[in-house]
C-alpha cells in the first residue's frame, strides 16, 4: 500500500492536509469558530483557550501544532491585547516556510470585518493547500503516539500489549513511537532506565516517573484502589506493567520535555511542557502527541472512549461487552484476544497494518464522526 504524503517546506511529510485556523486567546475563539463553520472543508481549528498573559508552554504548543506535518498553512485570529500575540505566533510558524496570515479583531474593526477579511485569506490558503506536492512516504517517516483512557482489566491484558507489538513493528521499520502518562508507570522507573540508550536518558526517565509518583502521593490521587484489587490486580506495579506493555520492547531513546519533532527515530516517552495543558484528559494527551509531531494516535480503551484530537485516532478495544456498545467508535476489535481466539502478536500485526492504512488515507472512526477535540 503506497502512502502518498504531503511535502512541507521544512521537509516534514504529512498524512493529512489541513489549513489551521488558530485562535490565540479565548476572546478570538468566536470569530475563529465562525470561520471554521463557513469553511469546514480542508480546515482544522485549535487555539489557546486562555486569557491575557503570555505563557511560554501554550505559545510553544501553538507553534508546534501550527507547524505540524498535517498543517499546510495557518490563519491566526487574535483579539489584539493578549500575550500570545497573533503576529508573534505567525512569525514563529512562518519560519517553517508555511504560508501564514494573522488578523487582530481590534485592528480589523470587530467581528464582521475580521470574518470578511479572514474569509478571503482562508480562500487563498485553501487553494495553496490543495496544490501541495504529494510524495511517497515509508513507515520510517511515521510518528505514532499511544494513549489509554477508560482503562479496564482488558487494557493491560490485551489492548496495551497489542499496541506494544505494533510499536515494535513500527520501530523495526524505522519509525517513531511515543507514549506519555508517566503517572501510571509507578514502579517502572528501573525497568525503563534499563531500556534507556544512555545514562542521561536513564536518569531522566527515573526523574520524571519519581516526580509523578511523589505528586500522586502528595495529592492523594494515587491510581490504586479497591476496585483494582477486586478486578484481579495484586499490586501497583502489576497495574503499571499493564500500562508499560504499550511501550513495546525497544530501547528508550529519550524523554520528550518540549514540543517539536523528536530528535531521532525509535521509542520515546513524552511528558509535555509545564503549564501547557489546555485541557486535562485524553484529548489533551492526543494533542500533545501532535505537538511532538505524531501523525497518528493509538487509543486503547476498555470502557469505550470516543475521544479524538487534531490527528487521526485509532481506537483499540478488547472488552467484548463494551465492544458491542461502542462498535461505532472502534477501529480495531481486539476482543478475539479476550475470547481466547487470537494471540496478542496476531492482533498487534493487524494493528500495525491498520496504522499504515490510516497513513495511506483511510479515515479513522474519530475522523469520520468529527472528533477533533482541542
Amino acid at each position: 500500500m503506497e502512502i502518498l504524503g504531503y511535502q512541507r517546506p521544512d521537509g516534514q511529510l504529512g498524512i493529512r492536509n489541513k489549513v489551521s485556523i488558530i485562535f490565540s486567546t479565548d476572546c478570538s475563539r468566536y470569530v475563529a469558530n465562525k470561520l471554521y463553520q463557513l469553511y469546514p472543508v480542508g480546515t482544522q481549528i485549535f487555539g489557546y483557550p486562555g486569557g491575557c498573559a503570555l505563557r511560554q508552554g501554550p505559545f510553544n504548543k501553538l507553534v508546534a501544532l501550527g507547524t505540524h506535518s498535517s498543517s499546510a498553512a495557518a490563519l491566526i485570529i487574535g483579539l489584539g491585547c493578549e500575550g500570545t500575540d497573533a503576529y508573534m505566533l505567525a512569525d514563529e510558524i512562518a519560519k517553517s516556510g508555511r504560508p501564514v496570515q494573522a488578523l487582530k479583531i481590534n485592528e480589523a474593526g470587530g467581528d464582521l470585518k475580521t470574518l470578511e477579511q479572514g474569509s478571503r485569506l482562508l480562500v487563498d490558503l485553501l487553494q495553496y493547500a490543495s496544490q501541495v506536492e504529494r510524495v511517497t512516504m515509508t513507515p520510517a517517516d511515521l510518528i505514532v503516539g499511544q494513549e489509554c483512557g477508560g482503562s479496564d482489566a482488558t487494557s493491560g491484558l490485551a489492548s496495551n500489549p497489542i499496541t506494544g507489538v505494533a510499536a515494535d513493528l513500527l520501530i523495526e521499520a524505522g519509525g517513531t513511537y511515543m507514549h506519555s502518562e508517566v503517572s501510571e508507570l509507578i514502579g517502572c522507573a528501573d525497568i525503563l532506565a534499563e531500556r534507556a540508550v544512555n545514562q542521561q536518558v536513564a536518569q531522566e526517565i527515573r526523574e520524571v516517573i519519581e516526580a509523578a509518583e511523589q505528586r500522586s502521593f502528595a495529592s492523594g490521587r494515587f491510581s490504586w484502589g479497591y476496585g483494582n484489587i477486586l478486578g484481579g490486580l495484586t499490586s501497583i506495579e502489576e497495574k503499571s506493567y499493564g500500562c508499560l506493555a504499550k511501550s513495546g520492547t525497544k530501547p528508550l531513546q529519550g524523554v520528550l520535555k518540549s514540543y517539536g519533532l523528536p530528535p531521532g527515530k525509535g521509542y520515546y516517552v513524552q511528558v509535555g511542557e509545564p503549564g501547557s495543558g489546555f485541557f486535562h484528559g485524553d484529548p489533551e494527551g492526543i494533542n500533545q502527541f501532535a505537538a511532538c509531531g505524531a501523525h497518528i494516535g493509538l487509543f486503547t480503551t476498555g470502557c469505550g472512549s470516543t475521544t479524538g484530537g487534531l490527528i487521526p485516532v485509532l481506537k483499540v478495544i478488547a472488552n467484548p461487552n463494551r465492544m458491542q456498545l461502542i462498535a461505532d467508535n472502534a477501529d480495531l476489535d481486539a476482543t478475539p484476544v479476550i475470547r481466547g481466539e487470537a494471540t496478542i502478536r496476531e492482533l498487534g500485526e493487524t494493528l500495525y497494518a491498520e496504522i499504515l492504512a490510516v497513513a495511506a488515507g483511510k479515515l479513522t472512526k474519530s475522523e469520520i464522526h468529527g472528533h477533533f477535540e482541542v
Partner: protein
Amino acid sequence: MPQRAILLNVADDVATAIVDLPAQESVTVSLEDRSVEVVLNQEIEFGHKFALRDIAQGEPILKYGLPIGSALSDIRAGEWVHVHNCRSEHFGFHREQYGLKA
C-alpha cells in the same frame, strides 16, 4: 479450542483468566514454544491470576516477565495468586518512605 487464560510472557509464573474458571478444571495456557497445563484447586474469576508452578515463600512472582510482588507463603501450581499470598515490593518500600503505617 479457545484459550481460557492469557500467558503474557514465556517467563511468567502466573496466567490470567479471561473467563470465570471453575475449581478442579484443567487449564492449558500457551505462548510461543511454552505450554503449561495446571489443575485449578479453586475457582478463578475473570481477570484474576493462578500459579503455573509451585512458588516458594519469598520468591518473586513474574507477570509480563516482571516481578509483580513476592510470595507471602508457599503457593502451589493451580492456586489463586492475589493480595492474600503476594505482596507488592514497591508499596512496601513506599509505605516506609512516605511514613505510612504498614
